[in-house]
């Protein structure tokens, strides 16, 4: 799939706006999910997710074709997310972090796709519980855990996306795993 994206990006650089639609279609769910899990609500995820693609489009000429496009795109998304979190009022921020109830019904709907009816209820509850525990991690741990285990980037790629040294990525992933272990050990 990498070559397809590479070609599309070249077309966009040549001024073909319609080629960008394919890029959006290909990455929309990943970027939306990343924003959603970082921000904890649908409205902001949609807003920041769309803004990510618009920034990517506007700045497409600064993308180096020799690099991985997804890393570049996630970097834009991550910067916008961090910016949004910083601008929040402290009370609102805490509220969104702990509760995150907005998403629970949606997770359940999505989980339903490939499950048998009798498995549904039990599966939903566990998934919602885990999702809530991930959402409760401090953002700096949550981002590395998500990028590593849900979006499957390498540690080196994560260091590029977040623009932090590899050693810092490792420290955060260690602490993130320990924090989650404590929250999930009784599941």
């Amino acid at each position, binding site marked *: 799939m990498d070559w397809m994206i590479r070609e599309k990006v070249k077309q966009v650089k040549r001024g073909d706006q319609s080629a*960008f639609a394919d890029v959006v279609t290909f990455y929309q769910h990943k970027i939306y999910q990343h924003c959603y899990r970082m921000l904890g609500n649908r409205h902001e995820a949609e807003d920041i997710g769309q803004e990510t693609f618009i920034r990517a489009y506007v700045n497409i000429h600064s993308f180096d074709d020799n690099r991985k496009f997804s890393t570049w795109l996630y970097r834009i998304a991550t910067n916008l997310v961090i910016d949004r979190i910083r601008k929040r009022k402290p009370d609102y921020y805490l509220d969104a972090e702990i509760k995150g109830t907005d998403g629970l019904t949606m997770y359940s709907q999505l989980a339903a796709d490939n499950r048998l009816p009798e498995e549904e209820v039990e599966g939903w509850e566990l998934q919602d519980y885990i999702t809530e525990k991930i959402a409760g991690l401090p953002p700096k741990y949550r981002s590395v*855990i998500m990028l590593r285990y849900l979006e499957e980037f390498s540690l080196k790629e994560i260091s590029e996306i977040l623009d932090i040294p590899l050693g810092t990525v*490792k420290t955060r992933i260690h602490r993130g795993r320990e924090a989650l*272990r404590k929250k999930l050990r009784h599941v």
Partner: protein
Amino acid sequence: MDCSTEAIQLMHQYLDGDLVKQEEDKLRVHLEECEACQKHFHELKRTITLVQSTGQIAAPDDFADHVMKRLPAEKKSVKSMR
């Protein structure tokens, strides 16, 4: 081996694929004789599996359309470069 620091550090390095053979052996030998660390290691690996088991979240149906509508118009000067 000091369980609270060294062994746990080795576990995380293992999970990041950072252990050389010698260190891996050291960890394995320790896990065989230390039940607390065995449990800790198991919990860490299980945590990762649980995280990976959470469902994917889909963007709203009209997401891509909205992005495309919000893009700035194509620049003529760029177009003529084809």
